[in-house]
C-alpha cells in the first residue's frame, strides 16, 4: 500500500507544486473559517474572485511568458495605461465597445513590440519589458494627470450587474450571494488559456522553448514566432485586465496598479510555474492568485495584524514554493544522473549526491529560519503594540489609555438612520469622539461624556456623501489598515452608507500604509463636523 502511494507520488511529481498550492489555499481558508465567523459566508469566497479577477487575467498572460523562460514587467504599466486611455476615450464620447477593441489592439501592439525586441534584437526580457513598463506608465500622465471617472452606461452595467448564484441566493428578492460579469470573463479566459496551453501546437511549443530553447530550435519548432506570440498574448491579457479593472473601479488613473507586476509574478510562482520556464500549469496560476487574495482577506479579518504583513507573507510563501521547486528539480537531475551512473561507474554516485544533500539541508534550514523569524517578529510586533499602549502613553501624558473603537455603538447609530458614523481615537490625550451624520443635516458628536450638535443643510450632506463616493470609497482602492497609533496619532473608524451600499474602513494616521484617498475623505469630513472645545 505504502509502496503504491510512493509510486503514485513519484510518478506524478510534476503535480506536487500545484497540489501544494491547492492544499495550502483550502487549509488556510479552513483555518480562517474556524477562527473568523465572517469567513464562513460564501460571499467572502466569491469576493476573492470578484476582487482579483484582473490579477488572474494578467497572471494568465504572465504564465505563458514565464513558461517560455521570460518575464514581463510591463503588465502594471499596460493595465494603468488601459484604464487611463479608455477613460479618456469614453469621456470624448466614443462607443464603449470600440474603446475596448482599441485597447486590446493597443495592448497587443505593445506586447508585440517588446516581443520583437526580445526575439530579434536579443534584448534581455527583463530590460525590454522594463522599458515597456516605463513608457506605458509615463504615457498615462501625458493623457491625464488626474483620475478620470467613467460614466458610461455599458461600463456601469457590466460592473454593477450581479449574477446570483443558484442555491445561495433568492431569485425573487434578488438578495444573496453573487458574482459579477467580470468573474465570468475571467473564467472564460482561464478556460481558453488552459485549452491553449495543453491542447494546441502553440502550447506545446511554449513548453518546449521553456525546457530548452536551443533544442526547440533544432527540432524545427517556430521559436521566434512563438515568442513573439507569447508577449503579444501577455499584452492582450494585460489590456483585458486593464479593461475589467476600469469597469470594476469605474475610473482611470496613471497611478493605478502600482507594484502590480510583483503581485502577478509572485502569484504565478506560487501557482507552481517555474521562473526558468518549461514547467507549470495555467490552472495553478488560479490558485496562486487566490492564495494572494486570501492572505489579504485573512489579514483584514484578523484586524490586529498590520497591512504590511501581506507583503512579508507573500515573500515567505514565494521563497517556500521556489524551495520546493528547486528541490524537485534537484531530485530529478539526481535521478537522471544516478541512472546514467549506474550503467557506467557506480563509485561516482556518492560524490554527486553529497552536494545535493547539502543543498536540501540548506533550503530546509533557510525555510525554517524564515518561519521562526516570522513567528518571532509577530510576537515582537504584538509586544511592541502592547508596549506602546502602556509605555509610551505614560511619559507623554499621565495614564492615558487608547480606547477601543465603539463599533457596536457605530453600528446601532447606522441602524438608527445615520448615513455616516465617524470615530476618531487617540492623540496625546487619548480622546475618543464618535460622530454621526443624518440625511436631514443633523450632526451629533459624542466624546463619551458629553454631546455636541450641529445643523447643516441636507444638500451639504448629499455633497459630502457624493464626494466620499467619488474618492473611491466603495472600490477596492479603499481598504482596512491598522497598527497601533503613535503617541500623537489618531485611529479612525469610518462607516459610510450611500445609495444602498455600506462600508467600513479603519486606518491610522502618521503611517504610510493607509490608502491615499482615505486622508482626503477624513479631511473632508473634519471640515464639516463640529469640534469639541
Amino acid at each position, binding site marked *: 500500500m505504502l509502496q503504491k502511494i510512493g509510486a503514485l507520488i513519484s510518478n506524478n511529481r510534476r503535480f506536487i507544486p500545484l497540489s501544494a498550492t491547492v492544499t495550502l489555499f483550502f487549509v488556510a481558508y479552513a483555518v480562517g473559517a474556524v477562527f473568523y465567523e465572517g469567513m464562513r459566508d460564501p460571499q467572502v469566497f466569491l469576493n476573492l474572485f470578484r476582487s482579483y479577477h484582473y490579477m488572474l487575467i494578467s497572471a494568465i498572460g504572465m504564465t505563458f511568458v514565464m513558461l517560455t523562460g521570460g518575464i514581463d514587467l510591463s503588465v502594471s504599466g499596460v493595465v494603468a495605461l488601459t484604464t487611463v486611455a479608455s477613460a479618456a476615450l469614453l469621456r470624448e464620447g466614443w462607443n464603449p465597445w470600440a474603446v475596448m477593441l482599441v485597447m486590446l489592439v493597443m495592448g497587443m501592439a505593445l506586447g508585440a513590440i517588446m516581443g520583437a525586441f526580445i526575439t530579434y534584437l536579443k534584448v534581455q526580457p527583463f530590460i525590454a519589458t522594463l*522599458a515597456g513598463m516605463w513608457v506605458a506608465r509615463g504615457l498615462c*500622465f501625458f493623457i491625464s494627470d488626474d483620475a478620470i471617472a467613467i460614466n458610461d452606461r455599458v461600463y456601469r452595467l457590466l460592473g454593477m450587474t450581479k449574477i446570483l448564484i443558484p442555491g445561495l441566493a433568492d431569485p425573487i428578492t434578488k438578495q444573496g450571494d453573487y458574482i459579477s460579469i467580470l468573474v465570468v470573463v475571467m473564467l472564460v479566459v482561464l478556460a481558453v488559456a488552459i485549452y491553449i496551453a495543453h491542447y494546441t501546437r502553440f502550447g506545446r511549443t511554449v513548453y518546449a522553448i521553456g525546457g530548452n530553447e536551443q533544442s526547440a530550435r533544432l527540432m524545427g519548432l517556430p521559436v521566434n514566432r512563438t515568442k513573439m506570440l507569447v508577449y503579444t498574448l501577455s499584452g492582450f491579457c494585460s489590456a483585458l485586465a486593464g479593461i475589467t479593472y476600469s469597469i470594476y473601479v469605474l475610473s482611470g488613473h496613471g497611478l493605478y496598479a502600482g507594484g502590480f507586476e510583483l503581485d502577478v509574478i509572485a502569484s504565478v510562482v506560487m501557482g507552481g510555474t517555474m521562473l526558468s520556464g518549461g514547467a507549470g500549469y495555467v490552472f495553478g496560476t488560479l490558485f496562486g492568485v487566490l492564495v494572494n487574495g486570501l492572505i489579504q482577506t485573512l489579514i483584514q479579518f484578523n484586524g490586529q495584524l498590520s497591512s504590511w504583513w501581506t507583503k512579508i507573507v507573500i515573500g515567505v510563501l514565494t521563497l517556500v514554493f521556489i524551495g520546493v521547486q528547486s528541490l524537485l528539480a534537484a531530485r530529478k537531475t539526481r535521478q537522471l544522473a544516478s541512472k546514467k551512473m549506474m550503467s557506467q561507474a557506480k563509485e561516482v554516485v556518492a560524490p554527486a549526491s553529497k552536494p545535493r544533500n547539502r543543498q536540501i539541508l540548506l*533550503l530546509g534550514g533557510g525555510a525554517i529560519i524564515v518561519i521562526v523569524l516570522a513567528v518571532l517578529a509577530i510576537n515582537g510586533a504584538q509586544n511592541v503594540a502592547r508596549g*506602546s499602549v502602556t509605555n509610551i502613553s505614560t511619559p507623554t501624558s499621565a495614564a492615558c489609555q487608547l480606547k477601543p473603537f465603539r463599533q457596536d455603538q457605530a453600528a446601532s447609530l447606522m441602524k438608527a438612520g445615520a448615513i455616516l458614523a465617524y470615530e476618531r481615537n487617540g492623540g496625546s490625550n487619548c480622546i475618543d469622539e464618535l460622530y454621526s451624520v443624518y440625511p436631514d443635516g443633523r450632526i451629533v458628536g459624542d466624546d463619551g461624556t458629553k454631546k455636541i450638535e450641529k445643523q447643516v443643510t441636507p444638500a451639504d450632506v448629499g455633497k459630502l456623501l457624493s464626494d466620499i463616493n467619488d474618492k473611491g470609497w466603495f472600490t477596492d482602492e479603499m481598504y482596512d*489598515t491598522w497598527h497601533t497609533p503613535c503617541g500623537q496619532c489618531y485611529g479612525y473608524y469610518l462607516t459610510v452608507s450611500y445609495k444602498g451600499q455600506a462600508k467600513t474602513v479603519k486606518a491610522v494616521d502618521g503611517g504610510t500604509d493607509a490608502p491615499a484617498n482615505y486622508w482626503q475623505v477624513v479631511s473632508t469630513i473634519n471640515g464639516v463636523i463640529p469640534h469639541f472645545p
Partner: protein
Amino acid sequence: MTQSKSSLTWRKITESKLFFPFLALGLILLFDLIFVPGFFALTTKGGHLYGNLIDILRNGSCIMLLGIGMTLVIATGGVDLSVGAVMAIAASVAAIMMNPVIIGVKLPPNLMKFINDPNFTYAPLWEVVLVTLIVATICGLWNGLLVAYGRIQAMVATLILMIAGRGIAQLITNGVRIQIFYEPYAFIGNGWLILPFSLYIVAFVFAIAWILTRKTAIGMFIESVGINFRSSFFSGIDEKKIKLIAYAFCGFCAGVAGLVASSNIKTSDSNNIGLYFELDAILAVVIGGTLMAGGRFSLLASIVGALVIQATTTSMYAIGVPANAVIAIKGLVVVFVILLYSEQVRGFVRRITAQKGT
C-alpha cells in the same frame, strides 16, 4: 599610413567600454546646451557650488552608489532586485535608532524633552551608521546565500526580498513615517563641502570597490565566475564565496544609499524610499556596457551610466515635462541605448562603415 593609424585609434576609442556611456551623456548634455538656456550655469552661495550640473551629481548619488554594487553582482552573472527594498530597510533602521520613542520605547524623562531637538539622538551617529550598514550587508548576504549556496536563479532569489523588504521596513518602524530631526545625520545627504557631501561618500565607496576589484584578484575572479562559473570552479576559484561577496557588497552599497536618501528627505518613508531604484541601478550598469550575462565590467562606466539616467531626468524637469511623465522619456532612452548596444545594430553599422572604407 596616417589614415590607418588614425582609424586604429578611432577603433580603440569606439571599442572602449567608456565610449558609449560618455557618448550618451554627451548627447544629453548637447541637448541641454541647445534647448535649455543657462543649463550649465554654476553659482556659488556661501562657498558652495550650485547649478544644474551639481544637481545631477547630487541627485544621482544614490543611483551611483547602487550602480557600484550592482555592477559587481551583474558581473557574476546575477542581478539584485532587492536594493530598493534594502534602502528602505536601512532608512527604517537608522531612523528607529535615532528616535525610538515613536514606536513605543520608553525613555527616561530627562531625555524625553529633547526628542525634537536637532542635537539629540538616542544612539550616537557612528553607531547608527554602523548598525545600519551591518543590517544592509546581512540583507545582501541573505541574497548571496540563496543565489550561491541555494542555487536559486538570482532574479527569483532577490525578488523575495524585493517583495518582503518593504513590509519588513514598515514592520521595523511599526508603519510610522519617522521624522529625523538630528542635524549631523542630515549632513550625510544635505551637507556641502564646496561640493555636496554625498559625492564624497560616492567617491569613498567607489575607491573601496576599485581597490577591491582592481588591486586584488577579486575583480578577476568575479569576471571569471560571470563568464563561466563551472570552469572557474574547476580552476580552483571558490565561485560561491565570490558570489556571496558580490551580493554582500551590493547590500552594503544599498545601505549607504539608504542612509543618503533618508538623510536627504529627513524621514524614513518605507513606502517610497528607493522605489524603482533597483531598475535605475540595473539600467545604469547596462548603459555602462556590462553584459547582463556577466563577465567583464567597468565600475567607472556604470557611474557614467548612472549620470546618464540622472541627466535625462534633470533635463526633462528643466524643459518642463511633468514629473510623473518623465518615466516615459526614460523608457525611450532605454530603448535607444538597447538599440545602440545590440549586436544586430552594431553589425549593421559596421557593415555600412566597411562599405564606405572600400
